[in-house]
């Protein structure tokens, strides 16, 4: 959502579908490295991260790499809070992101849908 808002501010068009589909490009500079940094950081792949981090510092710069990893670390906790509390999308955000959520398929992360998907037929867990 922030990426979409950022694109509107700068007049840049991003392919948000590629956020949830790694066969395409979003249109963000160094996005391949950013993806690899994020994946390694949130999946605890520290050996992989060491190499990617060096590549990223070379390609993007030290500060940018630290910034990216700091955001990844923060969201490693933030998404857990959302997962653990079933917090709904903000009303206004929901109203203005109908198309984007449809295109990216992120509605499948809706907590009611997820609860139905991962609960057993008798409602137990």
């Amino acid at each position, binding site marked *: 959502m922030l990426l979409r808002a950022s694109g509107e501010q700068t007049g840049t068009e991003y392919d948000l579908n590629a956020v949830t589909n790694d066969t395409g490009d979003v249109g963000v500079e160094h996005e391949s490295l950013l993806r690899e940094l994020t994946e390694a950081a949130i999946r605890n792949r520290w050996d992989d991260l060491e190499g990617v981090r060096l590549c990223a510092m070379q390609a993007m710069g030290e500060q940018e790499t630290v910034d990216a990893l700091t*955001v990844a670390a923060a969201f490693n906790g*933030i998404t857990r809070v959302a*997962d*653990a509390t*079933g917090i709904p999308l903000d009303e206004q955000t929901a109203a*203005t992101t109908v198309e984007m959520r449809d295109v990216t398929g992120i509605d499948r992360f809706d*907590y009611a849908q997820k609860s139905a998907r991962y609960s057993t037929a008798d409602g137990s867990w």
Partner: protein
Amino acid sequence: MGRHAQPGVSWTGAERVAILAEARAALDCELCNARISALSPNAVQGVHDAASALPAAVVDGIHRLRTDPQRLTRAWFDSLVEDQLSLAAYAELVSLVCTSVIIDTQHNVPGLPVAPLPDPVDGEPSGDVLDDTVDIGAWLPVMKAEADLTDTGLPSVPNIARAMSLVPRAAALFSARSGHTTGCSRFPSRSARRRPSSSPPGCPR
């Protein structure tokens, strides 16, 4: 991590440090690893490799939140708070685990060892929870908030910033670690009142 070691709202300092220890232990837990690989986490039963004397249901909650949060369900939450934990104890636990995840990840990503766990601070839990809450469809009741927007079109107080606001100290602890990223730093302060505790043995309410 000094704030984590202080007595909380539902948990003592020792219990809060034990929660942090469990969150770390979950990464090497055989049951958790088997569940991650399974099509459904509920298909695999067993005993967690626990690092504390916390009740089994609490250990299970911490390990699931640390290793497989995307498959937590409302039914699981309902069963946990029905007879194991109060809503406030759950909110505080989520805050502790999720802030510890952020802190540990911040150490891990530059290749640093994680910080040693702090020594617990003696004292009793305060019992302070927010009285004036509202149901917005989340699993926990949350504080009321204005629906105004920032200049980016995003809410000035996003729902994620209210997720643990039933326990203002839990929300504040998390905000201190994530606020720059989510806008949680605008989390408004509200007065909390002390509620009587009625926990089952071994579990804070």
